[in-house]
């Protein structure tokens, strides 16, 4: 009997797209679990996805100590990935992040929800833009 719960096809296709993008990109599923980021995102994250593996998106975001342009802590509810996951709408924010390699970087993040078939929310894509 089948046991594995497959990723939704849209996430599988999104991963293949992200794998071929030179833009740092991450994917989270509908439950808010980070399921993939591409090689281009390694520079910002400071490690490869295979070293980190799947983890709750909130935990992953918090590990970067995201701050506003004025270096004030960014409220959780302003994180674009959180907005895309919880409110299921696109969001964009410019911020500072402290990567796992210890480097402070200024980036912009765009996150948007993915819907499949009629109305099924299947996850989000987050894209980092180097400022």
């Amino acid at each position, binding site marked *: 009997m*089948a046991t*594995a719960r*497959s*990723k939704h*096809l849209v996430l599988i296709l999104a991963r293949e797209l992200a794998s071929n993008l030179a833009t740092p990109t991450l994917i989270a599923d509908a439950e808010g679990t980070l399921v993939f980021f591409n090689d281009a995102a390694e520079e910002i994250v400071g490690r490869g996805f295979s070293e980190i593996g799947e983890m709750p998106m909130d935990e992953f975001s918090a590990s970067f100590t995201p701050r506003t342009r004025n270096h004030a802590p960014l409220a959780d509810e302003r994180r674009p990935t959180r907005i895309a996951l919880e409110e299921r709408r696109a969001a964009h924010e410019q911020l500072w992040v402290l990567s796992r390699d210890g480097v402070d970087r200024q980036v912009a993040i765009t996150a948007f929800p993915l819907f*499949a078939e*009629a109305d*099924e929310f299947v996850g989000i894509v987050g894209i980092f833009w180097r400022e």
Partner: protein
Amino acid sequence: MRVRIWGCRGSVPTPGPQTVRCGGNTSCIEISLDDGTVFVLDAGTGIRELGNQLAENGVKHVHLMLTHLHLDHLEGLRFFAPLFDPESTIDLWGPRSPVVTLKERIRRSFSPPLFPIDLMDTPGRVNFHELPKTQWRIGEARLIASLIVHPGPTVGYRIEADGSSVAYIPDHEPALTGDFARRSRDWISGGSIAEDVDLLLHDAQYFEEEYDGRLGWGHSSVDSAMAYADAVGARRVVLFHHDPTHSDETMERLEAEARSLGSNTHDPPIVAREGMVLELPSR
């Protein structure tokens, strides 16, 4: 559980002396369970003869499961006897779409000007069901439908009953998702339906050298099909959706090619042939 192939040709019917062994009818298989439940998967031209057989056997209720609405999986519906029998009921299942209902999408090719009769005017009773997002049961059977890589909303099916399992994925191009053979099964298109299945009917429309010019058309090479069977741990593979240009001789070469690839399936792969019956023992 018994699986019978009524049509295994891809894309367009191919009658004629070159295709008598594999058959020229487009996709349609029948799965019958010990309790008498009949599942019909896809409504290619093979469904016409099946419909006549059902009428002859007095079967008045079937579940028709459509993988998608490409014509080679739908064109036989207009000639399916139970639709024209007022005492017959068809539970018709198919993929959801963001804009138009399943019924209306099917009706597009089953109404004037494309066909003289409107689907809504046929005397048989049809209950339309858009597919559930999670597994569900019909009688003793457990079913899973999952979106898979093919142009437009397309699903594959898994049916588990009588102690065995079948996965039907006639149109599928998993190669578009990259090196799927090296991914964990949860990252493989259709992984939840094909995983460790007893019998996998899978698209193998092309030889590897033919695939190069047909990337993105939604179908697999025989190499890709066998790599897929290995990746999901299928026990037995039947290669399906034969290219219209492939004669019986060509299909024999394709079968030999599949066997030469050295897969891990329990039985050697075979190409689907019209009229083939596969009995699945309880495990």
